[in-house]
């Protein structure tokens, strides 16, 4: 989609939203959503309703003081909504492994923006947007530990992962002999390694790097695993128009530099 048609699209949908709001006052809002202008439906008209697991810094976390969601993905969602002429609305955190089913079932949220790798398995359940950031995997252990990927693949070792993540998949596939514990959040996993409950965590490299820098200084990354995976935004298969609109907005964010600005804010430089 070209820049011009994007602009027209944003204007048209903003116009349609305004028209709908005006219409609500008189007719009680039973008129069909302005389907001609925006070819997608939203859970809350005029709002991009997002869900995530908000314990995945720097991609998403809750501000300690305000409890508001913040992070790379949150900024992406804001910019995305802005480019689409919508407001952004974040729902409370939920477990990562429930995000795909929630989006698939629909009715609660429009999109899941959750540092979610685009995989064929997920694409069977939901549509994924174009990739917006690259990621890799990592193995994290206690600093000074002599563990390696080889020694961890042993029945006596416990690997903590976040349920439903590609890190969990990687551990299942590459550390078949170790006991895997699937936890709700990556914070639980890292705390467990810190306290000695688990031997290692397998998780996305940007997350482990950030966590070790910010709060888990007594942990270290023993292996950076190149997987070249890419994060995408999950949208219901019933809503292909929204996926298309998101892809268009993402492309625009790449070209107008908004994505670079967000990357610079959260990773120190444009990736």
């Amino acid at each position: 989609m070209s820049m011009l048609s994007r602009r027209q699209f944003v204007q048209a949908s903003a116009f349609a939203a305004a028209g709908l709001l005006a219409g609500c006052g008189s007719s009680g809002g039973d008129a069909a959503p302005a389907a001609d202008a925006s070819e997608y439906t939203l859970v809350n008209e005029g709002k991009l309703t997002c869900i995530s697991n908000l314990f995945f810094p720097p991609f998403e976390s809750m501000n300690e003081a305000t409890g508001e969601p913040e992070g790379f993905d949150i900024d992406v969602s804001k910019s995305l909504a802005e480019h689409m002429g919508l407001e952004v609305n974040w729902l409370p955190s939920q477990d990562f492994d429930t995000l795909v089913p929630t989006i698939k079932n629909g009715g609660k949220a429009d999109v899941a923006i959750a540092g979610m790798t685009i995989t064929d398995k997920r694409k069977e359940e939901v549509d994924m947007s174009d990739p917006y950031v690259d990621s890799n995997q990592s193995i994290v252990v206690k600093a000074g530990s002599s563990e390696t990927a080889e020694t961890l693949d042993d029945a006596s070792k416990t690997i903590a992962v976040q349920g439903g993540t590609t890190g969990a998949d990687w551990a299942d596939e590459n550390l078949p002999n170790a006991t895997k514990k699937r936890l709700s959040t990556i914070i639980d996993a890292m705390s467990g390694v810190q306290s000695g409950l688990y031997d290692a965590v397998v998780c996305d490299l940007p997350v482990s790097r950030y966590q070790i820098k910010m709060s888990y200084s007594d942990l270290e990354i023993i292996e950076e695993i190149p997987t070249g995976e890419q994060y995408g935004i999950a949208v219901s298969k019933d809503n292909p128009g929204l996926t298309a609109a998101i892809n268009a907005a993402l492309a625009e964010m790449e070209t107008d530099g908004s994505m670079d600005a967000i990357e610079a804010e959260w990773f120190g430089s444009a990736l």
Partner: protein
Amino acid sequence: MGHTATGKRTAVAARIAALAVALMLLVPTSAFALTTNKATARPNEDGGSSVIGGLPTRLTWEGSVEDGEEVTEVTLTLPEGSSFDGSTTKVTVLEGLSRASIDSEVAASGSMLTVSFAEPATSGLLLRLEVEGMHFPDDGGDVVVSGTYVNQAGTQTLTDSKPIKTIANTSLQKMIASLDANPVVAAWNSNPFLGMFFKPQLLVTAFSTLVPGWLLCLVIVVVAYPFAIILGLIFALMKISKSRLLRAIAILYINILRGTPLFLQIYIMFFGLPMMNINIDNNVLGVIVIAINASAYLAEIFRAGIQSIPQGQYEAASSLGMSYFQTMFDIILPQTIRRVIPTVTSDFITSYKDTSLLSSVGVMELMMFAKNLTSVSGNMTPYVAAAIFYLIVTLPLIKAVGIVEERIANSERGGGPRPKDKGAKDMSVAEAEAKLSELAVHASALDDEHAFVPSLSPMNASFGTEV
């Protein structure tokens, strides 16, 4: 994205360098310049960790391009019986941790998969092929990924991967496959609600894979509960004791444990203790947390039970010259036990359900298995199966509580089973009972609020067979 451009630039530079080296040497010196790093397969056993033959799974193959090499094509070959048909392949070329953009085309047929690159992959690059939806041979066994690749010097042989262990299709998986093929099941699953919460295939899987978790739940609560009862009784006696210190300790213990979420107590125990270098097995720790938490609730139940026994009982006991402990253990507690059985059973049910919270700290109990299965399948059915496992235990207990409550209510009223009851009883017994209950009704009618008379009957009963 920024890195793509730089990636390309360095890739081009590397290519020129590699080309120069290749030209200088004219012939590639090493026959195995594309090193097979690994070949792995994603476990496709629902709730298990095995790779099952004959069912779709994902094969991941990784190879690094060595010095002086330009790889234009990679062909993976699997043993007879494997199939790449219907698979989709994701090709990722990585330079270090960043993606290099090299377009590729994939052709899959039978047990061969060929990836051709639009531009040659040069030295230092990592080639990563993820083949989703491929099948290993039905019979299982160790599968070695072999193949060939094409570099500037022609077709070369790939080093064989380490074998991937696969197992033969299980009867459970065959049953699921037959459900998959069933049109009724398909129609059922097409309803979003039924498909998400009551998918028959997953119910079958869940019932077989959740059993160890269910047993662990039962073991934890059954082992924990006797300790909880003993601890609870001790704290109940402390709370009603005359010593101010004992009372204070008991009140502190009970109020803190009842006043904070069990979730928090679990976190403190599981993350706190190891930090103090106290390492206890997870399951044992689970038993300890559940026992301690339940003991606080039980202490309150026992205290209320003890205090519900009328003062007259104590007076009667002391008039017989009984000591405090004799009174407590021979007179008061036996009656208390009768009275608290329903409440304690309810608390047992609560504790049994509370074991689910242990999943958050990695105890492999029922919820953990259900969560595992849900995260693998992206479907809520395993949670429904877990709910059924909880109900198998809780429903009979709830029923039992009802029956016990009714019996106690009856005996507190002074009556046993009514003569109208259709029991296989001797006439004489029934008659005698009828008379007895008449008497009891008279007695309680005469003196309803005076607790002494009706309270004697549970005391007598408690010395009999009941406790």
